[in-house]
């Protein structure tokens, strides 16, 4: 649910990066933080364990400046991917306007992707939102994996129901930034269209 402050002429939107553990959600945010102009970004805030696994969330505020007189801000969050933190994900997802689902392209991670997506659907529905209409962009990350372990895009589409749900889908290598901004553009557009 976006917040529109007419008096202060501000619009705030919340975008959450969701997906199984180690799929690259924090890497997406780090890359965005490293690339956007200084005047656009705030500090990247990470609540992580000593081993740099996300414990609660990462948070990156982006200030898009004035659009038709409205100061527009996007707040990007990641959830902790590990199965253990299911309830934490529910907490971070609270009030989200759109979700980027980061799927791991490793063949062996397909079941984890599917489980995480199912959980996302449940959590969105619990917020009294219709999952089928909720703005979601699918990112297939780690497309640079060796061929032996790389899941074909069609296989992932099939397992994750991407074609059926008509979600925009982006192939990415978040460590080097490939597809990161394409994903951000896609989710931003999807969120704006629902405002």
């Amino acid at each position, binding site marked *: 649910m*976006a917040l529109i*402050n007419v008096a202060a002429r501000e619009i705030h939107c919340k975008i959450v990066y969701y997906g199984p553990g180690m799929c690259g959600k924090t890497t997406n945010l780090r890359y965005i933080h490293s690339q956007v102009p200084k005047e656009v970004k705030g*500090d990247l805030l990470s609540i992580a364990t000593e081993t740099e696994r996300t414990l609660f969330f990462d948070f990156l505020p982006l200030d898009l400046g004035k659009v038709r007189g409205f100061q527009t801000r996007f707040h990007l969050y990641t959830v902790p991917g590990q199965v253990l933190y299911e309830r934490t994900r529910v907490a971070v997802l609270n009030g989200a306007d759109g979700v980027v689902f980061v799927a791991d392209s490793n063949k062996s991670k397909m079941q984890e992707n599917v489980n995480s997506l199912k959980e996302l659907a449940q959590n969105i529905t619990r917020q009294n939102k*219709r999952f089928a*209409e*909720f703005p979601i962009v699918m990112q297939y990350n780690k497309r640079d994996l060796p061929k032996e372990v790389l899941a074909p895009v069609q296989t992932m589409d099939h397992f994750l129901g991407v074609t059926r749900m008509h979600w925009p889908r982006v192939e990415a290598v978040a460590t080097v930034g490939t597809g*990161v*901004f394409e994903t951000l553009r896609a989710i931003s557009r999807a969120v704006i269209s*629902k405002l």
Partner: protein
Amino acid sequence: MDPQLTSIIVPTEELRHIEECLVRLVEDTGSDYALLLDKSGQVISSQGDGDRQDITALGALIAGVFASSREVAKLLRERDFRASFQQGVRENIFIALIEEQWILCIIFNKGTHIGLVKVLTKKATDELASVLERVRQQHKARDEVLGSSFRTSMEDTIDLLFRD
């Protein structure tokens, strides 16, 4: 209305009510400052001497703490934790929920008694709850605020700022 398509729009006059309410709360309790947040962590208004640059991060973290405590409540089969208190060496934070949608947060030091903060916060949350109720009923204003030209400009801005 489809909850998917609803945005909370705070009109000018309601924001003034909110600001007055927060200013009064800060003055009457002698607190450092008060914040009103949306449950998604966005700051609706902040009043007091907290001219802090990190207020955006503060909003995100406090909303996170609150959302997290809500999940704890569910595990304990408690309906909700309506308020929470965090005690520091110098500063304390008292947080109260307004109708599952907004979070009122008061930051105060040793000079202010927690009892006073609790009582006056209760009064302020009642007042803010009626503001929220009015804001929710004014949804029709959205199309006046966000026309199709806004969305087009927004998309242009997105393409410009988020390029590879």
